């Protein structure tokens, strides 16, 4: 980093703030605002998760613990504000959730961060199960199966803002989201953030430099708990799966989880309207990403940077279009099969075996649609294997151009 003022970074952040302010004015439908709010919460949660997975190399299956506990403490605080036993502005409620997340991050972090790698992942899963089991044991705090309910319109309105309309809630979430994003980005620039990367890449060397990897992991986990708690508290005011979000977006980049959070939240709301099998599609998407693009969407973007710089991106366009067409055919067959199977299993008894799919009527009890769908799937698969060769050839051109630009 040079000593110059980081104009570019300022530009990126300002653009992001502008998008967050303008978004609800552009997408004005009722569900859009709540979806945007969800995205804001998901961004904080996914970024806090990436503090563990992406920056410190800790695969945690228990991060929802801090989100959930933050949410419960915030809910109780909100009810206390409503009952006038606690004087605290609603807009600062996330701090209470964050504090709860921090405290539990310290407690559980002390136990879990003695391990790393696979044992850490397993233990975090065990802790998550333990907390989940505990939540049913203490119904007066957790509200048992039904949970606890809250009313967000409490406390004195500040300048006419009482958080009744959902647009006010959105702007509260957006503000917190922005602040948290900056805080978490700033954290990556601190010595602690740098050491976290070192611990991720080579804990032994980090120890030689004089830092205790366990302590670095512990600090990162506690702070991640803090941010997860903030996200949980916002969830209370507003009314998932964070690993998928962070991973699909790309854990190797700071912006990756933001992309993932926005995309996954959008897919969740959009897909679940159309199909009940969306969780399956989601899982398949996740698996394909791990197999073929383990760096996530963010890494796919940075992968193409040299191609754009050497002006050879055009070479890739045609193969990509072909691959996209083949993948679309493959997906058409797959979706048809899954939807027919789903219809036959769950709805056939009530509405009969005939269903409409992609605007066509078909009888799932006969063999014909199954054969057609399987045929489409097969054709798509063969085409994809065939087109992959051209993609590879296109990348060959790009590599040659990049090497020439480097003077090799």
């Amino acid at each position, binding site marked *: 980093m040079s000593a110059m003022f980081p104009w570019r970074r300022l530009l990126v952040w300002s653009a992001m703030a502008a998008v967050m302010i303008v978004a609800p004015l552009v997408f004005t439908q009722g569900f859009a605002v709540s979806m945007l709010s969800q995205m804001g919460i998901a961004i904080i949660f996914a970024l806090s998760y990436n503090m563990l997975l992406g920056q410190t190399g800790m695969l945690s299956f228990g991060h929802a613990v801090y989100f959930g506990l933050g949410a419960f403490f915030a809910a109780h605080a909100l009810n206390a504000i409503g009952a006038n036993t606690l004087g605290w502005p609603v807009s600062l409620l996330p701090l209470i959730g964050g504090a709860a997340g921090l405290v539990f991050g310290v407690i559980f972090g002390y136990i879990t961060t003695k391990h790393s790698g696979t044992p850490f992942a*397993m233990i975090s899963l065990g802790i998550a199960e333990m907390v989940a089991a505990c939540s049913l044991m203490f119904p007066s705090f957790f509200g048992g199966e039904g949970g606890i309910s809250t009313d967000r319109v409490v406390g004195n309105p500040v300048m006419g803002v009482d958080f009744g309309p959902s647009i006010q809630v959105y702007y509260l979430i957006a503000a917190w989201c922005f602040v948290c994003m900056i805080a978490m980005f700033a954290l990556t620039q601190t010595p602690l953030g740098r050491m976290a990367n070192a611990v991720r890449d080579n804990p032994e060397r980090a120890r030689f430099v004089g830092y205790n990897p366990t302590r670095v992991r512990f600090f990162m986990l506690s702070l991640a708990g803090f941010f997860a708690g903030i996200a949980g508290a916002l969830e209370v005011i507003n009314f998932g799966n964070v690993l998928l979000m962070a991973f699909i977006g790309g854990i190797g980049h700071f912006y990756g989880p933001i992309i993932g959070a926005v995309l996954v939240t959008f897919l969740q709301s959009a897909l679940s309207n159309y199909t009940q099998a969306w969780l399956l599609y989601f*899982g398949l998407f996740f698996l394909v990403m791990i197999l073929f693009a383990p760096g996530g969407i963010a890494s796919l973007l940075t992968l193409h940077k040299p191609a754009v710089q050497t002006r050879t991106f055009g070479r890739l366009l045609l193969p990509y279009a072909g691959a996209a067409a083949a993948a679309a055919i493959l997906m058409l067959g797959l979706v048809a099969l899954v939807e027919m199977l789903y219809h036959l299993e769950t709805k056939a008894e009530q509405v009969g075996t005939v269903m409409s799919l992609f605007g066509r009527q078909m009888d799932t009890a006969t063999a014909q649609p199954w054969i057609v769908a399987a045929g489409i799937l097969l054709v798509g698969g063969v085409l994809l294997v065939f087109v992959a060769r051209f993609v590879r050839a296109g990348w060959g051109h790009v590599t040659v151009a990049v090497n020439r630009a480097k003077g090799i």
Partner: protein
Amino acid sequence: MEFFLVTLLNSLSYGLLLFMLSSGLTLIFSMMGVLNFAHASFYMLGAYFAYQTSTYVGFWPALVIAPLVVAGLGALTERYGLRTVHKYGHVAELLFTFGLAYIIEEVVHLIWGRAPVPYRIPEILDFSAFSIFSTQYPAYRVFMMLISVAMLVALYLVLTRTRIGMIIQASLSHPDMVQALGHNVPTVFMLVFAGGAALAGLAGVIGGNAFVTEPGMAVSVGTIVFVVVVFGGMGSLAGAFIASLIIGAVQTFSVAFDYSLLSLFGTIGIKVNTESGWMELWKVTIAQAAPVLPYLLMVAMLIVRPKGLMGTREG
């Protein structure tokens, strides 16, 4: 006494079942360093396949067919899934098995629905084997124990007495040397993965009808198996065996006890302020706390001895 003996037998059969799962998981972990999150999903698939096969050809063929099918799936998983992501490191491998577990659960939802399926104990085994005082002990539980013990003995003999067992053991510690001696180590890995999956599948076949066959069974058993493996020590078969029996006993016994801290205070004569906020904690009975106990045991073990009961490596 009667209660104690019956519960002891139940906990033994459950513990042996847990070991069938944790042994495969441990073998796979110590060999490839991969924690297979989909291991309990193979257990679930074993139960569902057995249910489906038994509706066509009956229970006994299913006992053989279902584990073999699961073994085939395991081999495919290793060959085309794990081996592909291996180059991206352990986290990617772990995430792959996690995603696989997720998909298997969704596929089970899709094919068999969300409700439990009526996978029942075969009629020929549906009688009481013997009676302890006044309790009739079901023959199926005895059958489960027999199958588990037979499996254990077979596993032990294969690992210690056969040529392939020797190669497997050698590949655990010195894969490069074994490769240099002309053995195909990746194939050995695939075999071990398939074998572990088959064990899990077999556990599903005999466990699915003793308990409930439903889509949530993978998650509920899976986390317990992880607790067993951490408690026993990562990568130690003996540790996994002892831990399976202990965790099995803890889970089986704890649901039957109705004592709470309040009753303990009552016995030793401490007066408790019934208005205090701690009252809820004092009132929790052991039976109510049963789901948490295995995890508490695990956390306690991690604090006292981070490498587990018989573990050799830490972290």
